[in-house]
Structure formats: structure tokens, C-alpha cells
């Protein structure tokens, strides 16, 4: 009994780091389907659906650099134009034209529909979460790794994510997003895989469904992708007004 326990302990000590490394590798590879490069601009259309209501669409132009720095400009509808969000790592500001200056806000605050600020401002799970490989499952006929992601700090949009990544090619398939209480907040599915940048296939659609009311959906469509170097002023909160 004692030997068996010792063996199990040794196995955990020896095997766990390797398993954690593999899990981290899988998440990092899946992240590559969610970002076209190290410095790029893309446009995101968010269409919010709810039963018995006409869908509404919000447009954003997002400037991303160095995994973790992004500027999100609101470009539609007209009532939101002029607003912007700046994310520097786990710090977030919103610029509101009525206030005339950037104001600090939390990542978890709702942006529109089922979409939190962090859903648009960050496309990087490997930087925000520690991953653990739970096993394998088949999702819609696709064999997947199942991963348990735990937030590295409290300043992350979700406390935990259950993440399904295709075994073949390691592309993201599905995610469940959880609050710290363990409550399922929303479910996301990744699709619309296209080679929008030469040599780089990206998921151009993320569908987020409310954890309780499944009829409440937000569809994020990614397009207008340009990979280019973005000047530093885009990631300076003091420049948010002049970049409007």
C-alpha cells in the first residue's frame, strides 16, 4: 500500500510537469488560430440575438500588439462611435466622449450582448490561464483534447474555462466559461476557419451562448485583418482621445 502510494506520488511528480507542459502547448497552439500575428488590426462585428427581438449589430476595430496589448475602437452604431477600450495586460480603460478622458474599468464588465470586455480586448488564453489536460472527447464528430483552464489572477475575465481543442491540428472547437462560484456563464463555439493571412488559418467566428438562456446568443465575426506594426501611441491611455 505504502509502495503503491509512493509510486503514485513519484508518478505525479515526474509526469505532472510534462502533462502541464503539453496542456500549455495545446492552449498556445489553439491561440494561434485566434490571432493572425504579433501585431495586427482586425474588425469585429458582434451580432446579438435574443428570442422575439430583432438582432442588433455592433462594430469594433481592434489593434493588437505583443499578446496582451489592444485598443478597441467602437465604429458602429453611431451612438457608440467615439468610444474605445484600451487593454494593457490585465489593466483596462474605456474612453467615453461624454467624459472626455479614459476611465479605469474591470475586465469582466459586459461590453455588449453576451460579450465581456475581455472577449474582445484579449485573444490569448495561454497568457491568462494555467491549463490542465482532463482527457479526450468527441465534439460534433471531432476528436478533442479537453482542458481545464484556471485563471492565473483575479484580473481575468473568467475564473475558469473548460476548453475543447481538436486533436488534429489543435484548433479551438468549444469553450465553457465559468465564474469563480462554478456557475456556467456562457458557452463559446469556434468556426469559420479560413486562411485570411497567407499561411495562417484563423477562426473567423466565435458564437457565445448564455449559460442559462440558450436563446441569447452573440456572434463575433472577425474580418478586415491586416498584419502590420502598430505604433506605440495606440497603447498609451493618454493618446486615446486623439486616436478617436
Amino acid at each position, binding site marked *: 500500500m505504502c509502495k503503491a502510494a509512493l509510486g503514485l506520488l513519484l508518478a505525479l511528480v515526474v509526469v505532472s510537469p510534462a502533462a502541464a507542459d503539453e496542456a500549455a502547448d495545446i492552449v498556445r497552439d489553439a491561440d494561434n488560430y485566434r490571432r493572425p500575428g504579433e501585431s495586427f488590426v482586425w474588425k469585429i*462585428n458582434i451580432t446579438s440575438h435574443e428570442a422575439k427581438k430583432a438582432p442588433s449589430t455592433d462594430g469594433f476595430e481592434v489593434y493588437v500588439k505583443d499578446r496582451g496589448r489592444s485598443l478597441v475602437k467602437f465604429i458602429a452604431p*453611431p451612438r457608440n462611435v467615439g468610444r474605445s477600450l484600451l487593454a494593457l495586460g490585465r489593466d483596462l480603460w474605456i474612453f467615453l466622449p461624454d467624459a*472626455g478622458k479614459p476611465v479605469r474599468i474591470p475586465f469582466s464588465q459586459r461590453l455588449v450582448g453576451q460579450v465581456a470586455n475581455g472577449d474582445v480586448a484579449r485573444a490569448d488564453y495561454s497568457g491568462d490561464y494555467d491549463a490542465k489536460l482532463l482527457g479526450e472527447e468527441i465534439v460534433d464528430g471531432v476528436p478533442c483534447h479537453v482542458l481545464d483552464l484556471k485563471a492565473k489572477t483575479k484580473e481575468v475575465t473568467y475564473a475558469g474555462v473548460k476548453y475543447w481543442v481538436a486533436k488534429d491540428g489543435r484548433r479551438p472547437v468549444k469553450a465553457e466559461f465559468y465564474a469563480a462560484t462554478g456557475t456556467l456563464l456562457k458557452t463559446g463555439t469556434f468556426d469559420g476557419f479560413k486562411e485570411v493571412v497567407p499561411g495562417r488559418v484563423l477562426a473567423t467566428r466565435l458564437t457565445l451562448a448564455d449559460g442559462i438562456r440558450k436563446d441569447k446568443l452573440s456572434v463575433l465575426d472577425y474580418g478586415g485583418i491586416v498584419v502590420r506594426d502598430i505604433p506605440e501611441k495606440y497603447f498609451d491611455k493618454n493618446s486615446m482621445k486623439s486616436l478617436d
Partner: protein
Amino acid sequence: MRTLLVLFLVAGLTGAAAAADEPEGDVPDWLKALRVRGRVAEEFAYRLHDPGDVSKLKTLGWLEGKYTFSEAANVRVATRGYYDAVFAATDRYPDNVQRNQEKELELREAILTLSHGDFDVRVGRQQIVWGEAISTFVTDVVNPKDFREFVLPDFTELRIPIWALDGSWRLARNVTLEGVWTPDTTHNRLPKKGAEFQFQGPAFQFRNPVVRLPDGEDELSLARSEGGFRLSALREGWDVSLIYYDEADKTPVLFQRRVPQPPRPDVIVLEPRHPRLHIVGFTVAKSVEPVVIRSEVAVSVGKRYETTDRGDADGVVRRDTIDYLIGVDFPLVWDVDGALQLSQKILTGDAGGLTRPGVQGQVTTSLALRLTTGFFDNTLNPSVLFVIGVERGDFRLSPRLEWVLSGSLTMAVGADVFEGGRRTLYGQFDRNDRVTFTTTWRF
């Protein structure tokens, strides 16, 4: 002219509608670089107390254009115009108020922005906004303010733009030094006597005749130019900035002098002046999910106040003043967001005889609570702002309900209720409670 207008509209609509993979069509490059947008608003207010009557029937228009020459250079121009039909609809306001508030066409922005590496320069007519908190001016010290409608309009509307040179230098990642210089010493715009939101003046009780001189300093002056700097840094989630600003007090201080008129009694002359202020301060903000904390401190060295002390030769005393606030934003139940803010004004010296509204003693404390939420996917957005002066119990209560009719059109109903003694900040408008109705169309 008509062609130009059409081009402006096309550019504005193109900018607003472009999203995702939408094709941009055959718009020429020079036109893509032009962005035009604007809004039109109709603001109605009804005064609840005697005489219950319309107090605002204002039509406002904003038009803004931005032309981007390159990543490193752009120019931006914005105008605002309004006409308030309340002066035609009622005869409650004197002519001087009508002349001052009935109509206005103002250049709100004319800025050339140039960037080179880690340097940015903005030159022209602009708003330069410092500080972390909203709905307060503790370190928002650069631009003068328009108080003709108290502090009820949006803060971008309250700030009066100035001609200035504003430069930023990114010293390192997340460390920025900003320098400001302006020869534009425009003062705060205060309501005329008889206006809806006329402030209570100092409680002078002179037995002698009094002459009040006009506030006639030139608004552009190299000799009285103002300037300062702000050093901002972000470290470990702490967003900190240090500020220094040298300016003329934007609110006039009434200095007294006696002019002998033998054999008649001396005449008391009240002369508005703008003493020099040296403002030193800092701001800090930090997010501790899901709560955000923020604080601002400003020390105004050289601040002066009118006094009713008859023994004081010029009727003015110096009281260096510390203003600070501590605020916390937090989520509540049912998707309600709360923001609680404590602010204090502390005078370094005795406050006896000082009668300025907003200064209740050596320490003046104010507590503000704002609650906001949204229903039906944020198309119906109620909010309420409650601000109370702790020492005298005067308060402002402003509930508001915004209805988003479409992506371009919003309507809002609201109220502004004031209570308190006549010589308190909010109590001076005790008889000015109002309900408001606003429609805004954006393009």
C-alpha cells in the same frame, strides 16, 4: 457647397458602417482619410417650483471632421451651435441673460496632431483632461468651465476649449511625460444675474456705495500664460500620475478697496482678479476585479477667497486648499453598477467669514453615489446620481431614464432635484428643481 456636404455625409456613413469583411467599394483614398460625424439634440426642461414654467428649449448641433494625412499627422475640427427658444417663449429672464445664453456658435476643436516615434504634439484649440474620476474636477484643472447651467451638462460640454500646445513623450513602456503650455487664460463662464442657475454671491453687507468693476482681462496673454506637466506610469496594475500646473485662478476673486469721495462716504470698489495658483497633485487608480478604486489629490497653493471680515483691508484671504477624493466602482445585484465617491475640500486656515457656496467651513465634505443599470440588452438604461454635502445636508438628486430607440436615436427623461440652505452649493438652487426631456440623433 452641396457637393462638399454630400462628400462629408458619404465619408461619415462609410466610417460608421464599415465593419468585419464588408467591402469598402470605390471610395478614393483621399476621401477614406476624411471622417465626419455629428449629432443633433433637443433639450427641454420644465422648472417645477413657482413659477412652474419651461426653463430650457434648446436645439443643439455638433459637427466634427477629422482628416488623417498619415499615421503621424491628422487634423481635427469640431463646432457646436445652439439656440435656446426659452428666451422667446417666456419673459422671465432679463436681457443680459438672453444675450448671454440664447444662442452660440463655437469652435470646440481645431487640433493638428503630429507624431514622431515616442513624441506626440497636439497644437490648437482643445480640451486637455487630467484625472481619473468622472463627475469631478479635482485634477481636471487645465480647461476653464462653463457653469451657466451649473454642473448639469456632460463634462465635455462644461469644459471650455483653449488654444494650447500639448506634447507627450513616452519615456518607457507605460511611462509618459506630458507638457502643456497655453497663452489662453480664458476664465470660467459664470451665469449672469437673473439666470436660471445664478450663483449666490459673497454675503457682503456694505454701508457705503459699492462699484463692481468688470472682469476685463485679455483672454490671450503671453505674459500670463499657463502651463504644467503630468507624469503618468502604470506598474503592477497601479495607474499613477503626478501633476503640476501653474495658472491664474479661473474663478474671479473680488478684491476690495476704498476710494475716498469727500465729503461723501468712501466708495467700495470690488475688483475681480485672478490670482496665480500653483497646483500640485496626484491621481491613482487600480482594478481589483470586479472593483475599481481611484483617488485624486490636488493642492492649490495661493488660493484666495473673499471674506466678510470688515477688518481685512482687501476683503480677501489666502487659504491654500487641498481637494481630494476617494472613489470605488463596484457591481451590485441585478446587473446594477455602483460608484461611491467621497471628496473633501480642506482649507489650510480658518474659514470664518468665507461665504463662497461650496465652502462650508475649514473642511467641506461631499458624498456621491451613482447607480446605473440596463434592461432589454441595454436599450433601457436607468441611472441615478445622489450627491450630498455632509456638513449642511444639502443635496442633488438626479434620476434619469435613457431609451435607445435605434443605433442613432436616443431619448431620455430625467429630473434634477436640489435641497438645502440658500448658502450651500446645492441648496442655492432649491427653487430650481426641474424635469428634463432630451432627444439625440447621431450620424
